[in-house]
């Protein structure tokens, strides 16, 4: 069985082709060039314009024709409404045209599953941080339970907004990471609430601090504070769930400093640390295709009219039938 997966919850459009054994035959992506933040309607237009050539590129890369594809999967949520609707329409169209089934799958669960597939982690605590999501999850009784999450904005959003406010460029993550080198610490608020965290106060404080301190110092301190908060929440969740593996997911976790901190925390608690390869760490089509395979193989079916998008779809609402 071959599954073609379409990802497009935010600014990045991705198409992946994965076999039922988990071989990734293609994983093509097209990020939208960003000057500022993501405008949902512009991102949706970007997806609409690029989806056809990107599917063709993925098929060519995999060396297969559309008639060899047995299943279409797409990111049904959570994400930006206009973007989700574009990829949903593309997925349904392909399904109708080639008379094959279509499944809408959960974006956050897809990140976890592609991580397990590519690293061999079996039952990890997953630390997932991206532009739009920040959560710490672990499997229990057929669900990925959310042990910690942001109470307001996502970690990536915090850093991106900071960079935008200071006109440092976009996307903010790699820019702030570069500027942080050589900076020294200035005080910023550190907000952890139980196993949850909050980044909106930190963002406001960092923007304000940039008026009196050097950019390098604020970038350094923003990273150190925001990452330490996430690692601490992961550490609390690890102690609480008694899991023995930690898996990372999401574009923000590409950051070398964040990985270093998580590795150090894992070493202290004797947990194994798993980092998937870069091409499946951020948003990508292969993860959607793989979750399509897992869902379909465990009996999930959706009629066309049941494939509407779900903009706010909690990770713990998905029943994990394949574990």
């Amino acid at each position: 069985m071959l599954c073609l997966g379409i990802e497009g919850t935010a600014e990045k459009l991705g198409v992946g082709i994965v076999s039922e054994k988990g071989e990734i035959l293609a994983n093509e992506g097209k990020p939208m060039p960003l000057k500022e933040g993501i405008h949902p309607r512009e991102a949706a237009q970007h997806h609409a314009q690029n989806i056809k050539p990107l599917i063709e590129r993925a098929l060519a890369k995999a060396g297969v024709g559309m008639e060899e594809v047995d299943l279409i999967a797409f990111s049904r949520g959570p994400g930006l409404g206009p973007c989700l609707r574009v990829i949903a329409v593309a997925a349904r169209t392909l399904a109708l045209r080639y008379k094959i089934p279509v499944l809408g799958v959960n974006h956050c669960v897809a990140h976890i599953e592609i991580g397990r597939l590519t690293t061999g982690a079996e039952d990890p605590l997953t630390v997932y941080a991206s532009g739009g999501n920040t959560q710490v999850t672990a499997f229990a009784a057929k669900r990925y339970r959310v042990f910690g999450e942001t109470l307001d904005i996502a970690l990536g959003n915090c850093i991106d907004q900071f960079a935008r406010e200071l006109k440092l460029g976009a996307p903010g993550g790699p820019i702030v990471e570069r500027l942080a080198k050589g900076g020294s610490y200035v005080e910023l608020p550190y907000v952890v609430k139980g196993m949850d965290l909050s980044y909106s106060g930190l963002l406001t404080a960092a923007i304000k601090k940039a008026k009196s301190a050097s950019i390098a110092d604020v970038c350094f301190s923003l990273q150190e504070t925001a990452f330490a908060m996430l690692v601490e929440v992961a550490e609390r969740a690890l102690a609480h769930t008694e899991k023995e593996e930690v898996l990372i997911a999401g574009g923000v976790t590409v950051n070398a400093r964040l990985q270093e901190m998580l590795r150090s925390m894992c070493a202290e608690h004797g947990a194994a640390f798993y980092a998937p390869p870069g091409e499946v760490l951020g948003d990508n089509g292969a993860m959607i295709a793989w979750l399509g395979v897992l869902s379909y193989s465990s009996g999930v079916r959706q009629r066309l009219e049941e494939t509407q998008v779900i903009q706010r779809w909690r990770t713990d609402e998905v029943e994990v039938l394949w574990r």
Partner: protein
Amino acid sequence: MEVIAKGAEANLYLQNGVVVKERIRKEYRIPEIDEVLRSTRTKREARLLSLARRAGVPTPVVLDVDTQRKSITMSYIEGEKLKYLVERLDEDELRELFTHIGSLAARLHRSHIIHGDLTTSNMILSRGRVFFIDFGLGEVNSSLEAKGTDLLVFAKAVRSTHFARESQILEAFFSGYLREYPEGEAVIERMRSIERRGRYVSAR
């Protein structure tokens, strides 16, 4: 010294019948952040443990605070963490226990004490009494926002850890909370609005 528990942020030692809780240095944090967090939390925890007991919530008795070592020496509470106990209780026991816990949380909030990490990992049942521990993330704060967040942390911890009994636990908890603290209605209301503000809400 015998290590009796290794938590996320501290080691617990049993020494001559008392517990020493030492907040250990975290290599992943830069020293500037690490030092401040460990000092503040140690001082806060010692203070809140005493304030909470005065507010009518059983807590270990603080015997000594060492700000250099970031440690608190306190009385040893022999018992079981509620996290493990919950699974074995029948329906009536569960209701009784969490109604009581709700009333303890209410006593804290009535005195403007925020626990900061209300989970069943931080409650011990000892000789029929429930003790609250781990006040390191707490503060004294009279705002609805702080109290509402405190309740939300609890509700979410129950959802992730005791998912099979979530509704029973929360129902009992809130009934106990309101019985002890009728003004707490506004706190519960605020908890719901904080949750709705969050990123992952399926229904609004």
